[in-house]
């Protein structure tokens, strides 16, 4: 049986041994890579947490509990941590948000902004000056035309936002309208002029005589963005129009032009039955004479009328062609409803915008954060269930505990020796 003095010496030896073991453990932790994990909570806490784990030892895994999409800076930090070897994961009830700006080849709008927000909060589309549009929660898409192609546009939903900056604008050239002297040619030309397109025209009035508007130049993309060939009077220019389209120009082919052999290579649809007029209470384009189009595998239907394709499009090398089956769209303008004149103008302008060639000219650096949620997924993957990780303590705080334990052991051992009179 041990005497109390012996027990005390055994206790002191135990303290010394424990202190040595603690020191050995700390030495081991210093020399061997850590298997520790860290967890950051909330978007606001993440930056301080990221700073600390980045300047101290790097954890092998970092999990983020997010209540909002991290900022671009935070995501850049996450990306850097992942590059340094940490496995990044996250959890949280976040909804995608994104925005895009693309220049449009149309005189009325230089950019189309499209924003998506799937969150329950209302989404606001804003530029540097004011709110452009809004959508109630759950409506995923906002689209708006902007007359100015520069500046930052942002979509905001709840705490999250995405923004984009126009990176280029479309430089339009003239539109060449070719047709015979009739009401369709006249009012197509009028509609395009009213919509702001710069037009030139060659209107055939007699064999080898044409009324021209503007100085008709060589048909190429340096002079024209698109050609509107309404009928067979464009036959004599078919070869140059073919070259124009193949090099990127746009073409709208009227039904009468598409029926000629000169445009066989460019037409979207084989000629079908001749246009027939429909009847109805209100004259719209849908009720003017219309020939159904047969769309091949290389084309798409742009518009349908009573289940039949009335407008179709296809790509021809670098250019685009739209063929329309309507023969007398002018009646929509003259005999249609009160808004018929506006609808006729907008319809033609919209068609033209889909084919018009426009050279791009840069006006801004294109900077932005257009899809922050997608970027987060690219960095940290899809959201995962919260893993069973260590408490959100930092490595340095656990080391403090180790140091405190070591100090306590040495103090107890020293006090025990001094109290029994040993040195």
């Amino acid at each position, binding site marked *: 049986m041990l005497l109390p003095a012996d027990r005390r010496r055994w206790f002191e030896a135990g303290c010394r041994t424990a202190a040595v073991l603690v020191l050995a453990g700390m030495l081991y932790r210093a020399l061997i890579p850590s298997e520790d994990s860290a967890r950051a909570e909330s978007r606001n806490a993440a930056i301080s947490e990221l700073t600390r784990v980045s300047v101290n030892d790097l954890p092998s895994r970092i999990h983020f509990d997010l209540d909002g999409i991290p900022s671009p800076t935070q995501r850049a930090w996450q990306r850097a941590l992942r590059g340094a070897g940490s496995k990044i994961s996250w959890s949280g009830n976040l909804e995608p948000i994104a925005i895009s700006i693309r220049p449009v080849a149309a005189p009325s709008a230089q950019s189309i902004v499209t924003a998506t927000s799937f969150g329950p909060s209302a989404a606001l589309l804003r530029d540097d000056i004011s709110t452009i549009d809004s959508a109630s929660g759950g409506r995923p898409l906002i689209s708006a035309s902007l007359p100015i192609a520069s500046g930052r546009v942002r979509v905001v939903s709840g705490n999250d936002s995405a923004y984009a900056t126009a990176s280029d604008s479309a430089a339009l050239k003239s539109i060449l309208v070719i047709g*015979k*002297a*009739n*009401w*369709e*040619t*006249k*009012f197509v030309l*009028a509609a395009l002029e009213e919509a702001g397109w710069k037009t030139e*025209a060659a*209107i*055939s*009035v*007699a*064999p080898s*005589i044409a*009324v021209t508007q503007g100085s008709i130049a060589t048909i190429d993309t340096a002079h024209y963005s698109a050609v509107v060939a*309404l*009928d067979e009077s464009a036959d004599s220019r078919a070869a140059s129009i073919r070259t124009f389209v193949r090099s990127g120009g746009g073409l709208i082919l*009227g*039904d*009468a032009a598409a029926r000629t052999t000169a445009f066989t290579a460019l037409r979207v649809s084989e000629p079908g039955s001749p*246009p027939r007029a429909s009847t109805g209470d209100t004259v719209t384009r849908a009720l003017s*004479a219309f020939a159904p189009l047969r769309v091949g595998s290389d084309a798409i239907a742009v518009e349908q009328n009573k289940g039949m394709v009335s407008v179709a499009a296809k790509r021809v090398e670098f250019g685009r062609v739209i063929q329309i089956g309507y*023969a*007398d769209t*002018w*009646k929509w*303008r*003259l*005999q249609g409803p009160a808004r*018929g*004149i506006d609808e006729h103008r907008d319809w033609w302008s919209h068609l033209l915008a889909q084919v018009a060639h426009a050279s791009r000219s840069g006006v801004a650096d294109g900077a932005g954060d257009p899809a922050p949620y997608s970027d987060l997924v690219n960095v940290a993957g899809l959201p995962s269930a919260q893993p069973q990780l260590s408490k959100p303590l930092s490595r340095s705080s656990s080391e403090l505990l180790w140091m405190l334990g070591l100090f306590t052991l040495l103090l107890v051992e020293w006090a025990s020796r001094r109290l029994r009179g040993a040195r």
Partner: protein
Amino acid sequence: MSEFTFCTGRYDSGDWDSAPTLPANLIDSVARYTNIAVAPSAVIVPLSSPRILAYPLVYLTGHLPFRFSEAERENARKLVDRGGMFFIDDHNHDIGGVFHKTAIEEITRTFGKPSELKNDHALYRSFFNFPDGPPATSHELNGWGDNLVHKNLLAVTKGQRISVLYSNKDYSSEWNYHPDNKRFSSVDNTRFGVNIIVYALTR
């Protein structure tokens, strides 16, 4: 694509049909000189009917007082607002006459005040070339009506485009004959009519 159809507008107040062979004569000239697809027969459409909007060029003439009813005025305004054009000719060739006075008043009320059309206007070059402006008619030269040779036509314009063309030159008498009789003329006097139609179809 629909062809051009010559349309005479029928209005309630006067003798709208005072030049019955003029449409056929102009249709003959359009077919003779141009490749414009033209309907072989003209139509007569009441100005008060919405059917008038199917004819973007409407010819009006007469000798008697000229006044639109409310329905006629509304359709006439609508036609012009949507890009159509009126050609109105004073069959009296008399600026002191009743047609001229009432027509100018009605044109001013419905479309705005007409002004003199410059003789270098595109109308005079739209197909045939008339460097001196509107061609004189035999009725002017023979001293009928007001005994004047009118130097200019009148017009109400919308932007650069003529929406109402008004004449005191009495083309309704000048062109009112059977087209077969053109063979007796050294120069076809309906050529300016072709200019009006080509202008309406191309501007």
